[in-house]
């Protein structure tokens, strides 16, 4: 069985993602100890909350280094969710300019309305436009909606790493993949059937 370490940076509840992973057949361990990442064969980096606080918590606990070690050196598959996906980037402008993990090229910027219809935060169900084949989305029906709740997005991601975009505020990157690193801006653990499909796919990658 897949041992999935869910990185706890002290900002939110992780029970629902842990339970979703267990329902998909994984063995979930919520942890804030770098050592626990060494025994995992999957890592999930979740998150809601503000970027600077999350980054500070990851660094103070030694988790930032441990994630990089496991992902870059050991090639452990990583799924980063919502704020977690943003933490992969080089930096974010949320609250104050802050360095991220730098695992993926690009930065995090505030969503800007593209007309009066676009309310911020982007909250609710929206679709993905797949830009390339990606095992994470195998069996997910075209046009399926996922649950989003965020005000910031990743920008400047190299084209070849963009997996899906979502048509809101002129369009933004809602899923990315680079080697063994995957990030999604939406919440698979709150997206019911299609979200569970995605998590199952992650476990079998």
């Amino acid at each position, binding site marked *: 069985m897949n041992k999935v370490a869910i990185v706890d940076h002290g900002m939110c509840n992780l029970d629902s993602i842990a339970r979703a992973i267990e329902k998909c057949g994984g063995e979930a361990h919520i942890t804030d100890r770098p050592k626990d990442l060494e025994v995992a064969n999957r890592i999930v980096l979740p998150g809601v909350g*503000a970027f600077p606080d999350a980054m500070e918590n990851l660094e103070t606990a030694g988790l930032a280094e441990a994630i990089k070690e496991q992902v870059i050196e050991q090639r452990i598959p990583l799924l980063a969710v919502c704020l977690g996906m943003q933490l992969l980037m080089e930096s974010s402008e949320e609250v104050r300019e802050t360095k991220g993990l730098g695992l993926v090229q690009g930065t995090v910027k505030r969503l800007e309305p593209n007309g009066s219809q676009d309310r911020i935060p982007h909250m609710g169900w929206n679709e993905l436009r797949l830009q390339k084949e990606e095992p994470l989305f195998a069996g997910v029906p075209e046009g399926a909606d996922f649950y989003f709740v965020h005000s910031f997005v990743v920008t400047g991601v190299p084209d070849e790493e963009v997996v899906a975009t979502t048509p809101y505020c002129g369009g933004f990157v809602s899923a990315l993949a680079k080697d063994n690193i995957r990030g999604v801006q939406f919440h698979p653990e709150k997206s019911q059937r299609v979200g569970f499909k995605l998590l199952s796919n992650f476990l079998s990658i």
Partner: protein
Amino acid sequence: MLKVRVLPTLLFKDHGLVKGIGFDSWRRVGTAMQSVKVYNMREVDELVFVDIMATRNGDSPDFETVDELADECFMPLTVGGGVRTVDDVRRLLMVGADKVALNSVVAEDPSVVGEIASRFGSQCVVVSIDARVKPDGGHEVFTHSGTVATGKDPVQLAREVADLGAGEILITSIDRDGTMKGYDLELIKGVTEAVAVPVIASGGAGTYEDMARAVTEGGASAVAAASIFHFTEQTPREAKQYLASKGIAVRRT
């Protein structure tokens, strides 16, 4: 395209779910866990769970109950009732709420919205505003489950809290609550035009057409309803089919 959400509202009182009329005459409508499981199975867009007695009784939110419900809830969950402090919000998020609804405390001290938004992000701060029509026209905000008048105008309060960092406004008409006579479209429109954050219309839904009008005429991003789902054969899924037939984008499940 962002979809219009249909949200069942679960009101909690004395360990069970209730539904009233005009914030009064509460009837028992089952247990919370049973409802969460049913709505999970039916894949509703989102759930709103409010403890209507917490503030009136001076209680804190019931963290244990929320913890149990959240564990079974694989859809977004907004929790309200008795939320007064940054620590209440932190604890609710830790037990599994995705968003927290602030109500009475906001009318007393709007600055708490900014404090919470800067700590946890705007995306988890819902400000819930309950309002009644005034005898001379216009609306007035009431708190403590509709029992305390504030003298505040709901549109102004909505604008103020959105500026402070609220991520969403849940606007409820106390007059229409439980009547199933349709939403207070004037109230909803006033709020949606005043703020740039999403607005959930609440209070009065009796038909699917009421929901469609809250979106097309009121400008709501989401529609909340309780009586229609508790006391009639109508369901969130059918509601969305109806909205889709009117050209409103909804999530298909």
